[in-house]
């Protein structure tokens, strides 16, 4: 180490990069596996990458990636900032509906009336329409996040949990109200959303797989950065003891707003991507069930770990399917019982319990070593 610190600056930069890579080698390994997965899987099953079981399983993973990011955004609020909100479906559904509504009702007209071309004469009308949709999703998510955080400044604790539930419920009711059937399709929702051809999930499944994976990686990296930043530490301080954080001089309202806006943004983008993936937007995306799903994934994986909720999403999406086939119509019932058992006996989730146990074991090991050394 001493010799390295003397080395020139550019080496130091490289060095820290290497250090960083070494520290996150677990994540990188997972990433590598996920990148290779479609090809390896296709090779094993002996089919082409873009058809049959390979295609099907890519689809499964895409759903997992999106839900993982959604659950992770919920963990930013529940696990890190300690805010119990039941309105997360509003962000997800808001993103999904914004995307779907724009693509269905606005984008076609946009493409018809405007022409956008790059200096080289390349026609980018359709991509720019899509870009506009994403921008709109960002704006809507920010507005929703701000709306919720404004409420959170004034209303606390249980009142807040209820009011977020009610706000999300109001959005849900409106999303399936027959008054707006022309635009939203009411109960049915929007189906067959005309997504741009180059991102069509049925046609270009592998491309979409990598888009979803890239999205997940970027969002995870973003969340990780925030959580490990001083801001993230203030989130945790707020969770542990709000009045103390206030006394030290941090404005809880400000940091809660930051947490909400970031979380809403990530959830909204996840929702938007989900609506592209399913080429639809349905009232179930804004319903309380969606929030509860995020909640369960977070609890199952472990609150306040970021990785946990993602793992929870994967477990729920994969096993849920098998179990659904097993139990049939009884599955929701079994699922509820499992959830209660989890809450009562495994409150730290998979990742949390694992970390707790491994820390215990490590301590026990070192104690044993010390004792052995003392005896000698």
């Amino acid at each position: 180490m001493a010799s390295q610190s003397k080395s020139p600056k550019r080496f130091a930069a490289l060095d820290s990069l290497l250090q960083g890579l070494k520290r996150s080698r677990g994540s990188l390994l997972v990433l590598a596996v996920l990148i290779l997965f479609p090809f390896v899987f296709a090779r094993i099953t002996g089919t082409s990458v873009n058809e049959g079981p390979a295609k099907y399983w890519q689809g499964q993973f895409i759903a997992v990636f999106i839900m993982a990011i959604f659950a992770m955004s919920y963990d930013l609020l529940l696990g890190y900032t300690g805010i119990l909100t039941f309105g997360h479906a509003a962000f997800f559904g808001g993103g999904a509906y914004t995307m779907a509504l724009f693509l269905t009702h606005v984008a076609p007209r946009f493409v018809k009336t405007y022409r956008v071309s790059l200096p080289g004469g390349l026609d980018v009308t359709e991509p720019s329409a899509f870009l506009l949709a994403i921008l709109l999703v960002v704006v809507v998510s920010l507005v929703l996040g701000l709306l919720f955080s404004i409420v959170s400044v004034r209303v606390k604790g249980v009142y807040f949990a209820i009011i977020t539930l009610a706000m999300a419920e109001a959005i849900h009711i409106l999303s399936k109200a027959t008054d707006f059937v022309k635009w939203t399709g009411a109960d049915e929702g929007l189906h067959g959303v005309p997504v741009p051809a180059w991102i069509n999930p049925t046609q270009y499944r592998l491309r979409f797989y990598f888009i979803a994976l890239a999205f997940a990686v970027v969002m995870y990296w973003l969340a990780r950065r925030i959580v490990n930043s001083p801001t993230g530490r203030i989130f945790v301080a707020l969770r542990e003891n709000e009045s103390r954080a206030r006394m030290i001089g941090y404005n809880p309202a400000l940091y809660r707003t930051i947490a909400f806006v970031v979380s809403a943004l990530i959830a909204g983008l996840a929702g938007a991507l989900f609506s592209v993936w399913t080429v639809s937007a349905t009232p179930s995306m804004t319903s309380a069930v969606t929030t509860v799903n995020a909640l369960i994934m977070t609890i199952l994986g472990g609150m306040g770990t970021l990785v946990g909720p993602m793992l929870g999403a994967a477990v729920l999406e994969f096993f849920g399917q098998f179990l659904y086939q097993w139990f049939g119509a009884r599955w929701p019932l079994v699922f509820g019982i499992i959830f209660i058992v989890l809450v009562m006996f495994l409150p730290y989730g998979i990742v949390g319990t694992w970390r707790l146990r491994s820390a215990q074991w490590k301590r026990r090991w070192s104690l044993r070593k010390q004792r052995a050394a003392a005896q000698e």
Partner: protein
Amino acid sequence: MRVKAIWQYGKVYIILLIGLIILSVIGWRAMGQQSFVRTALSGLTLGALYFMVAAGLTIIFGLMDVLNFAHGAMFMIGAYAGWQFYTNPTFLFGLAPLVLALVAGIVVTPLIQPLAMRWAVPARWQRTLRAVVIVVAVILIIVALLGLDVRGLAKTAMVATMVDPLAEATPQEPLAVFWKRPLLFFLAGLLIALAQARPGDRTQVIRSGAAPRAIVALVGFVLLTVAATLTRESGAISVLKMNADARFFLSLAAGALIGAGIGAAIEISLVRPLYVRPTFLILATMGLSFVLRELTQLLWDPLPYAMSRPPLFSQPGKAASILEWFSKHTLTVEIMGVTFPSYRLFIIALGLAMFILLMLVMNYSRLGMTIRAGVQDRDMVEALGINVRRVFTLVFALGAGLAALGGIGAAPFAPVEPVMGDRFQMQGFITVVIGGMGSYSGAAIGALLLGLARAFGDFLALKFSLTPAVSEASTVIIMALVLLLRPAGLFGKKE
């Protein structure tokens, strides 16, 4: 001085009253007498229902800081239980012996305790032992239920035609096959009692007088179990033979009792271990509401059922006044020029009766006194020598019972379906938030405001050719307004 004091204490009431009067005058003028009165009465009906959900919710929260997400499920269970009891009680009578047998087993805890606590169980195995015992008990319960056609029993009321009640009577499993089921349940109960006695834990205090009471309870419940086992069919038939009105009022009581019993069981098993982790408590009750909804869906399909109104409210014709209704029992009553269903008036009366009953309990009974004291300072109540935990169980049972009573009251008016709990729970939440957590009078006023807002909102929505969904969504705005002005609700304790 006097005026100032009255203003201080009643300003919220006064402002609300003035606001309501002004709105009523405007409404009366703009809508005309007929539609105004009809809408107002509908609003009162809804308000009464919301109050029945909110009352339990608010007391439970006030005393224990528990936001009970399974409260709507209690409402739903009340509706189903009442509907079953009224239409065809075969299901309830078929399961009663099992539940009673389980309870009979559990009540022996104080008898086992002095022995079990002396067992030489190492401290670190005690938890595991208890868990194992509970798991065995659950397995016993599952074994006991094997082969019992629970769904078949549940379905009996679904096909009821109500033309000839006796034709509905369904045979139960013969005693020769059935007898082992209550026995296994009793054994499971004994195991749970063993776990509760915490084998090996010598720090427990044996209360004198607990053992004799336990013996009495044991004998009582065993006798009840035997009686219930023998009257599975005849009991159901005699209920069906009963005068339909009497059966209706009996089903109100049965629904409330079942709700209270389930509430107590929930508090003891699920809520009590989690008081120290409030977030997880919310999650656990949420999971429970999910389980209960799925369970009813499994037993009775996700279809909505309409419970028929008892003859007291369903004679053809129209009574010219409420007084005339008392002799004619007609379907509708004329009030201030409006023809209104008499059953909805009954719901309003039920809500009012519940409010008065609650007021009496809270103000004039020792339990009410303890609740009011506990809302303010739980530790001090405990320090006076009062077993606050038992009060918690009682209050949870009371709250669940009130919700269940509301549910069965609502059953002949609203469709009986698994999602009814969630719907009413949402409104109950909004009600208590408006009224202020922990205040039952706040809940009453919140329910009144919300009910009227919904009724008039629906009226307006219809007028502007919108759907009721818009008015439903707009109740959130009312809640937001109230909370912005008073963050702890109209009558809430300061947080």
